């Protein structure tokens, strides 16, 4: 069983703690730069500062769904199939949904003072909302009963389909005429429209949110792995209680049968 290795989390305990400290430090630096050091925008004034959270949140969501996709491919590929990738995909999607929700909320807060409205039915906003619900659907799909393998495959395929929307969100501002502005840094011309301290603050935000993502991914993965372990142990205990401590004990139980029985057995 790989339970011990899984329970340690993706990062070792020391790496995880260091990442947590680095994340906190980067977020504090971002607050200082975003609120005090970066100058107000010529046109938007102080409202533009929301950009230092909105853009990094969107980036972190893309990153999270990218990792979910990668882990899902590794799960679907028979040679690399492992429950680890299934859990990484799930944990990353959870964090990604949080960042997508954050992107939508922060964007709304930015839109009100600048555009004059909380929400616009333009392509960027709608495809982002679709993204939010696609991965929310993915997370609920993960909870449907089934054997570990069928659940894993099903979720992995769903993850690949949901990811189609990520490039659609990113390029929506180029493909369609939107109220939302085009990308400032990764625009088609790859010509950043932000410089100096403002650009530095934006990159600092990207760094801080990337660290936040890594830290949260590790934490969520650890929780999912512990959950998996607990269910296995509870199931073994239930089997032992029913069959007695004979040779049918849990040592040889494969992940497939345990998860298959999970739907029926309530200890």
């Amino acid at each position, binding site marked *: 069983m790989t339970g011990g290795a899984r329970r340690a989390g993706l990062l070792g305990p020391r790496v995880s703690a260091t990442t947590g400290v680095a994340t906190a430090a980067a977020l504090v630096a971002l607050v200082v730069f975003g609120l005090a050091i970066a100058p107000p925008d010529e046109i938007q004034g102080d409202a533009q500062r929301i950009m230092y959270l909105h853009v990094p949140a969107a980036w972190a969501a893309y990153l999270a769904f990218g990792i979910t996709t990668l882990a899902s491919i590794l799960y679907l590929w028979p040679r690399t199939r492992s429950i680890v990738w299934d859990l990484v995909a799930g944990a990353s999607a959870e964090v990604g949904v949080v960042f997508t929700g954050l992107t939508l909320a922060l964007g709304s807060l930015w839109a009100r003072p600048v555009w004059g409205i909380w929400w616009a039915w333009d392509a960027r906003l709608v495809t982002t909302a679709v993204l939010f619900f696609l991965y929310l659907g993915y997370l609920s799909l993960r909870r449907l009963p089934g054997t570990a393998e069928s659940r894993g*495959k099903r979720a992995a395929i769903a993850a690949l389909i949901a990811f189609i929307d990520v490039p659609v969100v990113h390029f929506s501002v180029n493909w369609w*005429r939107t109220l939302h502005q085009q990308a400032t840094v990764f625009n088609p011309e790859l010509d950043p429209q932000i410089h100096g301290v403002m650009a530095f603050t934006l990159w600092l935000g990207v760094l801080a949110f990337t660290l936040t993502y890594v830290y949260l991914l590790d934490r969520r993965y650890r929780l999912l792995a512990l959950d998996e372990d607990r269910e296995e142990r509870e199931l073994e205990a239930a089997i032992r209680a029913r069959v007695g401590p004979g040779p049918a004990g849990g040592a040889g139980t494969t992940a497939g049968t345990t998860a298959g029985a999970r739907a029926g057995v309530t200890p």
Partner: protein
Amino acid sequence: MTATAPAPPADPPAGAPRPRRRARYVVAALLCVGAIVALLVVGLRGNVVYFRTVSEAVAARPTDGGQRFRLGGDVVASSVSELPDGSMRFRVTDGRATVTVVHRGEEPALFRHDVGEGQAVPVVCEGRWGSRGTFASDRILINHGNEYEPERKNFES
């Protein structure tokens, strides 16, 4: 669950393949969702337009039957004036066509009255064609760009 039906005639007793078949349905449903997304991308490409340009709006004026739409363009330099009845009047252009907008309603905080020569101030106005070829707007959205610059207060002596 499977044993409740009193001897179903054609249905084979499906004990084991049940969950597998359900998984297949779920996958099929997801493929449909993927297809919908793909259709949205292919089908709506070039169709999802949040606003009409001034030229498009002028071209569609004879046939649009006074329906509501959004008009997007740049505010013409020093064209903003306030009318005695409280409404606001300005001209909006896309470089080829220009339209006079009469706006009645809230004015967004970032709307500028002192648009100078050579400054692009893009706005999106919601409303419909009014009398004498003007656009009757009741909502202005500021369609800001993707450029950010520090305030230049130090340049003013």
